Every structure is written in C-alpha cells, then in structure tokens.
C-alpha cells in the first residue's frame, strides 16, 4: 500500500515540556486514520507539524513519497482545527472563496468548487449570510466545506463532529467516507472513541508526547482482549463453574466467563454440552476502544499542559 504520510522519530520540545517525543508512524493512502489521545497529549502539536505550521525539532516527515515541503505541499492538505475559525462578519460565499484562493485555487476554480460543495450540502441559500447569523452546526458544515473543497490529498479533521446534531454528523460522516473512496486520506483526531471505532481503519494513540498504540482497530482490540465470552443458556446447570474458565459475572441465564490459560472456547462449550444445557448464544467480548483508551491513559491524566506553557 502506498503511504501518503510517513513520520520518522518526530520530536518537538518546548521550554518546559516534551510535546512530541519521538513519534513515528505512517498512513496508507486512501485510509481513514484516527489520531487519538487525551487532552494535552501532543495531538495538536503533531498536527501542526504535519500542516507545516510548526517545524519539528528533529525527525523527518515524508509526504506523498517525498520529503515534506510545507510551502508547496500545503495546497494538498486541508486542515480543520479543533477550535473552529471563520471571519464572523464576512459573507459566507466570499469567505469560502477567499479560503479556497488562499489554498492556491484561481478565482474561477474556487468559484466552481464552492458552488459544487454548497449545492451538495444544501448551503446555497447561505451565500450572502454572515457567519454570525449561522448556528454552530451550520458554521461547522461551512468549516468542513472550506477544508475539503480544494480536494486535498490529505484531510486533517480535529474533532469534526463536536457540536453537530446526528443528522448533520451523519451527513459529514458520509462525506468523509466519500472523500476516502475518491482517494483522499483522512486523519481524524478525536477522543470520542465510538466514532473512531465506527470510521477509522487504523489508529494511533498518543499520550504525553509518546505513541503508545499503533494498529488497525481490529488488531488493537485483539491485542487487548481478555478472553472474555458471553454465554446465554436456556436454563442454569447444577454447576456453573468449570475447570476451563472462571465466572466473571452472572445475570439470570447470561454468564460472562474468562477462559483460563491453556484452554480454548470449545472447552467452555464442552462443559455446558456435557451437562445437556441448551446454549442459546456464545460470543467473544472484545474490549471497546474506550476501555482500551481509558486503561492506557489512566493514571497519567494530569498531563503537563495543564500546568506548563506550551510555547
């Protein structure tokens, strides 16, 4: 798979703090990539290096197969920061045109793209309105459009769904899928795990400037699974406990069991089958990303940024 972005030993130290401390990973072209981490983990600094706003202290960034050249590559990147920014008093159509032109589109190209996206997301009637007249969700939509309308190869979305109602969130989600299908790569930075689980192919978890997890969503879950299974029985047997597993939780006829080392799931089934108990359901319980996230991050929550300046 072709890599759109490769980070090698990236470091960015501030006066009092290591914001990004030796992080490496790479992103496949056309994938949806989740960059996760608690507040102050170094996500924003990392993204600012990828968008060319900051220079890394050391390490290298390769973009689209070549060394990253912020001045020229910036056109191929769309960045939507966590804190949304638009000119409040500027008319919406003009604003979208202006931001597109700043990305390097000619006025006529920009006009064409803006019209296309406004039509697509049913925003045409907004053209002469001002941002201050928009609701939060509407300005979010506008922000999304201004981020993607120059069809960048790499789209970086920092918390794109915050403040969106479910209808608009789905609309944006569909657009993200669509962009990925058309060949754009999406970096999706968030700490909302349920969205990551749903959308992302590949995730990296950072905390306190370091990478602590890297892999596909499935891999990560496998890596953190605890061999827990849910067993639904028609009736309770005389002996709920068996040699191959321990009972974690019991709720009426539903048992949650952990398989002991050296045994397989079939051994659990065997135990109940031998007692002639009807098994109505049997499935593995994989940890949610949320659980994994909390487990990995817990105890280190008091990250440095809360107390120290991030210059």
């Amino acid at each position, binding site marked *: 798979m072709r890599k759109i972005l490769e980070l090698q030993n990236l470091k960015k130290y501030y006066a009092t703090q290591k914001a990004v401390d030796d992080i490496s990973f790479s992103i496949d072209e056309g994938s949806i990539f989740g960059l996760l981490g608690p507040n102050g983990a170094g996500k924003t600094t990392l993204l*600012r290096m990828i*968008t*060319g*706003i900051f*220079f890394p202290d050391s390490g290298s960034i390769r973009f689209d197969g070549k060394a990253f050249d912020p001045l020229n590559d*910036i056109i191929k*990147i769309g*960045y*939507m*920061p966590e*804190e*949304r*920014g*638009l*000119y*409040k*008093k*500027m008319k919406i159509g003009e604003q979208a045109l*202006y*931001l597109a*032109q*700043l*990305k*390097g589109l000619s006025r006529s190209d920009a006009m064409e793209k803006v019209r296309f996206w406004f039509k697509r997301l049913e925003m045409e009637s907004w053209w002469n309105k001002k941002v201050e007249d928009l609701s939060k969700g509407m300005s979010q939509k506008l*922000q999304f459009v*201004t981020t993607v309308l120059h069809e960048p190869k790499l789209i970086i979305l920092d918390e794109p769904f915050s403040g969106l109602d479910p209808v608009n969130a789905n609309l944006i989600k569909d657009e993200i899928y669509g962009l990925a299908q058309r060949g754009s790569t999406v970096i999706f930075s968030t700490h909302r795990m349920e969205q990551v689980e749903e959308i992302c192919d590949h995730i990296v978890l950072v905390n306190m400037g370091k990478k602590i997890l890297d892999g596909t969503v499935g891999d990560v879950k496998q890596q953190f699974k605890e061999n827990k299974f849910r067993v639904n029985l028609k009736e309770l047997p005389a002996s709920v406990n068996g040699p191959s597993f321990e009972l974690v939780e019991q709720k009426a006829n539903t048992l949650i069991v952990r398989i002991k080392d050296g045994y397989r799931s079939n051994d659990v089934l065997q135990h109940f089958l031998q007692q002639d108990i009807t098994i109505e359901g049997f499935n593995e319980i994989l940890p949610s990303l949320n659980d994994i996230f909390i487990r990995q991050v817990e105890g280190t929550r008091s990250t440095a940024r809360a107390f120290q*300046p*991030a*210059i």
Partner: protein
Amino acid sequence: MNKILLIIKREYLSRVRNRTFIVTTLLTPLLFAVLIGGNIFFSMQGRSKHKIAVVDENGFFKGNLKSTDELAFEFPGDVDTTNYLDRGYTDILLIPKFDGDKKTDYIIRSKKSIGFALQESIERKVNAAIEDQKLQDNGITRAQLDSIHKQSQFAELKTQQQGENGVKESSEGLATAIGYGCGILIYITMLIYGMMVMRGIMEEKTTRIAEVVISSVKPFQLMAGKIIGIGAVGITQFLLWIVLIFILITAGQAFISGETLEQVQLLQQNGGAMPGGGAMQASEAAQKMYNIQHTMGTANWPLIIGCFIFYFIGGYLFYAALFAAVGSVMEDIQASQSLTLPITLPIIFSFFIMTSAIQSPDSPLAVWASIIPFSSPIVMMARIAFGVPGTVPYWQLGASIVALIGGFMFTTWLAGKIYRTGILLYGKKVSWKEMMKWAFRRH
C-alpha cells in the same frame, strides 16, 4: 506574493465596505463643518445684546465710548444701580472720577454674567476712551488722533528669513499651523490604525481563524497583509476626507463670499473709514484671507507633502508592526493595558515633544526626537514646516528618513517573530519580556 495580495484585498474590502467606515468617513468632515459653521453662525447670530447704562462721573465718555452690535452704551442721567433693570438696561457701568496717577476701579454690574471676551472688549474701549481724552487734554486734535489710529492699524510685523540664496518671507504662523496639523494627523493615524491592526489580529486569534489561514499561508504573510490592508484603508479615508473637505470649502465659499465681498466693497467705497462693526469685521476677514493666501505661497508645499506622505506611511508601519506583535499575544482587550502602554506612551510623548518643537524647532530635544524613529514621524513634520534646509539641515532630514526606514524594517522583523509564536498560543498571559525572548531566540 499572490497570497499577500489576497489577504490585503480582504482586509481592505472588508473594512471599506463596512457601514461604520462609510459613516465615519462621511460624517467626520461634516461634523467639523457643522462645528465650524455653527460656531460662526452662533457668533454672528446668537450674541446677546448688552444695553449698558453708563454712570460717568468724569463727563467725557459720552461720545468717546463707541457702541458696537453687541455693546450699546447709553448715558441716561437718571439711572442708578437700583433701577437700571427696570429701565430696560441689561448692565450698568459705574465709572468713578479718575484721579491722576492713582489706580481706579470701574465697575460693571449685571444680572447675567458677562463673558470673558466681552469684559476685555469693554475694558479696551473704556481704556482707549481714557487715553484719547488724555491725549486731547494735552493738545492733540481730534483729526490728529484719527490719523494716529489709522497709522497704527496699518502697521504690521512681517518676518523674513535669511537663506542661502537671499531673503525669503517667512511665516511662523503658517509653519506652526502646518506643523500642528501634520503632527496631529500622524499622531491620530498611528494610534487609530495601529489599534485597528491590533484588534484585527486579536480577533483573528480569538476566533481561531488565524490557525486556519496559517495552514495555508505563512504567518508573516498574514501579518503583513493585515498591516498593509489597514494602512490602505487609512490612506483611502484620508483621501476621501481631503476630497470632502475641498467640496465643503468650495460650497462654503460660494455661500459666504457674496456677503463678504459686498462688505469689502462697501469698505473700499468709504475710503478705508470704518463706519460700523460689520464692515470692520469684513475688512479684517478679507485682510486675513489675503494674508493666508499670500503666506500659503511661501511654504515649500512639494517638500511638505512629500515628507508628510513618507512620515505618515513610515510612522504607521513602524507602530502598526508593534501593535501587531501585541495583538498576536492578546486574548482579551481589557487585559491588554500593560502590553499596549509601552507602545502608546512613545506616541503620546512624541506629541508633547512636537508641541515644544513648534515653539523652538532648533532645540536639542526637537532635533533628536526628529531623528529617532519612535518620535520622528510626529516631531519631524513639525520641524519641516519651518523650512528645509533653514531649520532642518539636509543631514538631519536624511538621518531621520534612514532611521525611520530602518526602524520599521526592524519592528516588522521583530513583530514577525513574536507574531509567529503568539498567534497560536492560547490560555497564557504573555509579558513583553517573553515576547522579546521569542524575538531573539535562535532557531
């Protein structure tokens, strides 16, 4: 480069199209016109007439105290302090017998207070009447007296300047006016538009648009675009004001001149004699008008306008960069006092130095302040009006220009460094000390 132009265009258009800009641009000259016109109108119409009963114990004021439009002196024999109001007088003037060399007070009493100017006018008239009487007492005839007055009115002081190529007429009054005018304009520009740059940058920072834009352009481009764009707004506003003022003056002249010309003609027909107050005022106005037109010609306008444009732009760039640096670290306009003070103080000081430089344009303070770029835009303009190379030698002008160019290049560089860090920094109060650290750290 193309992106800077885009940013300049946006900054410029978004402000020029703004309703507030249009309103203030149109209303400011109108407001001044209304103020000046109103002032003239009320001073002509609204002056309250004073009918003054004079109680004179000397007996020679009758006929010597000249009444004017607003002061009517009358000498009714049977009026005193108890009944002058009932008799229809507004004031009563009590003049006791003057006794040789002793100091004598005369009193005016009235129900309404008398303005300061009117007091002076009455005092001048009474004292002139005394002087006339004393001169006549000593054998000078009425005709001689009139001739003396006429001569002293026609005598006027003219100043000349010894230049390299001969003698030139100089006009300190005009130089003072030009100096003040230019100094105040540049002072206002630097403060108003500098603050506008600061607020604009702070808004971009707090609305987080800066982060979006900086992912497309270099921070320096965004800052420079803002400074140049707002500067262009300032120039536009000044140009519009000049055009509007010109229109208003032309309109005003068309309105006033008919009346004034008539009075001047009347004056000429009467062979220079002054029949009444109105014509007197008209002749003074005409005389002044002539003087202004004449002395305006003595100023070196191309040099003054050229220098004004240079110091106007240079001073703006110098301070706008500093304001930009401060704007980039601010998140709250209220908490910005300690940051803006080091910028506004030199501007305000320059203004005071300018007022003293107008009094003595050659003093060491004036010379140095007109070379140092912190104060040169305001102070040098005040000095240039007094003459180049008479008051301001060429080397001083050159040094000042070079220092200002160097100065704004330095402040722009400095601001660029501070801006780059400050614009993306949130939730932290920054001091000047830290800003300097960012500016001079090595990368």
